[in-house]
């Protein structure tokens, strides 16, 4: 049975305080107190967002010391509700995603280092996502997630080729693109959960989790703008300006390489990495990677002067929170081995200077690169 991809996405928010969401015409939302939630409400929802702090719940307090019936936090409640959904979902064929929202992300971290990224918090707590109340795009992200749930089939084709076709369709890889073969190969190299989804006991939300927890937060077959800038050897600000303006031939050509599939825009714009590589290769006429030649070609397409990143090869270096910080020469950087970095993702880098300064980064420097740090002995 397939999910109903038509109609507006439905978002159920469970909170002890009334809230309002800005969904516009794109979706429908309901807010319920925890005590008022029924199985029909969960069945209606594509996405259930539970506030983590449920302090004002008198019916729960009235239970006294019957603690098994008293989920203290939204996390606990989400787990209870998910079990109800999973059981009923087997009968109705409907998928429902779960997320937590909180104004205090740091208090969800559990055993993770602080601050822990939302995708890590979600993964460790059997959630699709964790929304911070300070995130300006929160409502938009909820809508995108709910919409994505509607597109996932509850049952995947058992035939391997049909399952691959379905995945390609969800990722909007049509097969017509010149760079299709390269990009599809890269998708498969990132352990796309196709074969697990073909298992009749599997859960369609595995695909969403793969994209949300593994692919989009890391440089894999999709590149975030910093990685695109590094490949094009353009300052990130220049590239952002070009894409925001959108009128130049460069913006148009780069736009044709953008990812437009499931969860598009959830964590910002992404580009197909393989398509970008083919683009640069063709732009240089298949010849040696001359930085001057690349810059000249990009400048002409942009129709304006562009800055340049001289470093070649250039890598995106991460800060202590593992967020992109700057683009430098790989000869000024060392590789990191963060605990939760997928093995199939591109290398994580940080500058030698950063690694020397920050103990938390030094601790995860690749042992083979330790010799490049000050007093670079093995940890």
């Amino acid at each position, binding site marked *: 049975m397939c999910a109903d991809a038509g109609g507006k996405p439905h978002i159920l928010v469970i909170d002890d305080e009334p809230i309002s969401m800005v969904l516009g015409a794109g979706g429908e939302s309901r807010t319920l107190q925890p005590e008022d939630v029924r199985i029909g409400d969960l069945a209606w929802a594509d996405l259930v967002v539970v506030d983590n702090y449920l302090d004002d719940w008198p019916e729960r307090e009235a239970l006294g010391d019957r603690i098994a019936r008293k989920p203290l936090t939204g996390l606990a409640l989400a787990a209870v509700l998910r079990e109800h959904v999973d059981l009923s979902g087997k009968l109705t064929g409907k998928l429902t995603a779960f997320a937590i929202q909180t104004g205090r992300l740091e208090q969800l971290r559990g055993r993770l280092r602080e601050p822990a990224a939302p995708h890590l918090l979600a993964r460790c707590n059997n959630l699709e996502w964790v929304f911070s109340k300070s995130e300006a795009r929160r409502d938009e992200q909820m809508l995108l997630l709910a919409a994505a749930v509607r597109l996932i089939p509850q049952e995947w084709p058992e035939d391997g080729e049909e399952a691959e076709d379905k995945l390609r369709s969800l990722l909007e890889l049509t097969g017509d693109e010149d760079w299709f073969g390269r990009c599809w190969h890269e998708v498969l190299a990132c352990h796309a959960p196709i074969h697990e989804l073909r298992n009749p006991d599997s859960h369609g939300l595995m695909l969403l989790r793969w994209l949300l927890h593994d692919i989009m937060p890391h440089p894999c077959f999709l590149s975030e703008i910093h990685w695109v800038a590094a490949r094009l050897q353009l300052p990130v600000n220049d590239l952002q300006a070009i894409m925001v303006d959108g009128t130049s031939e460069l913006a148009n050509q780069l736009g044709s390489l953008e990812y437009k599939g499931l969860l598009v825009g959830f964590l910002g714009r992404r580009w197909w990495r393989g398509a970008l590589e083919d683009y640069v290769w063709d732009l240089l006429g*298949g010849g040696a990677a001359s930085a001057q030649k690349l810059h000249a070609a990009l400048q002409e397409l942009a129709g304006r002067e562009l800055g340049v990143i001289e470093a070649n090869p250039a890598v995106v270096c991460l800060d202590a929170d593992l967020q992109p910080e700057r683009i430098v020469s790989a000869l000024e950087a060392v*590789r990191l081995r963060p605990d939760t970095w997928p093995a199939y993702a591109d290398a994580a880098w940080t500058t030698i200077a950063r690694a020397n300064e920050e103990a938390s980064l030094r601790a995860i420097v690749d042992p*083979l690169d330790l010799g490049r740090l000050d007093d670079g002995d093995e940890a």
Partner: protein
Amino acid sequence: MAGLRFRFSELIKEARALKSAATKYMANPDVLDSYVSQLQSYMDYGPNRTSKLTFGSEACPLKTTESKGRYEPGEREGKRNVVATISASWTISPLGNRSSKTRAKRELEVCGHAATWVKIFDVANRVNGDDTTPIATWHVDLGAPDAPGCYFHVHLGEGKDGKDGPFPKALPVPRLPTIFVTPMAVVEFVLGELFQSEWPKDCAAAVNVPWHTSQQPRFVELFRWQMGQLKGGTSPWMALKLAPPPPGDLFLPKR
């Protein structure tokens, strides 16, 4: 005179980066794993213990996938389907004391024979599925101080002085200069030759930056050293050919 020195960590990174970049061109990439495993073992040896560091072997070399005429670039197609095999043997000695504190910087010294062999086979000549008789062969050597030719050189065929047969069998010269020092660099050279269009494109991908960075400093230092030999007093080629072996720390990371 002290031999060329390399950090174990740099050679391991180099092999891993090449495997990541070029697995699709290798029929048996596990050869690189064995090479890395050797390096890791030697990294823990006591100092000055002479050993053979091997990359594959004559019986089990690294073998490329089949190049179906792709040794010609662009739209051209060669007439043969070929595979290449690469193997190497370096006589090395770990330097310095073993210590977990200094492991990341531990070095080895090339202290004897160091050669990387390349053989090209025409798939059409296989006997019972085996590649037995190469159609081309050469080896890339780090020279001995008293050997003819320059320190980094290529020896074509298996020429031995006085042996019967046409070149390259009958003569141990010419020895051609080379810029490929390590077995991994030789592998890349072979891939670039056998897959003239495919390898450059794959190699240029940003995901293969670790491979680029494993090679770039070494090439820069090699060219810098060669430039330094061109001091005049003879022809540039004679200056290079007669130059003494480079300093042992030529390829060590510079701070």
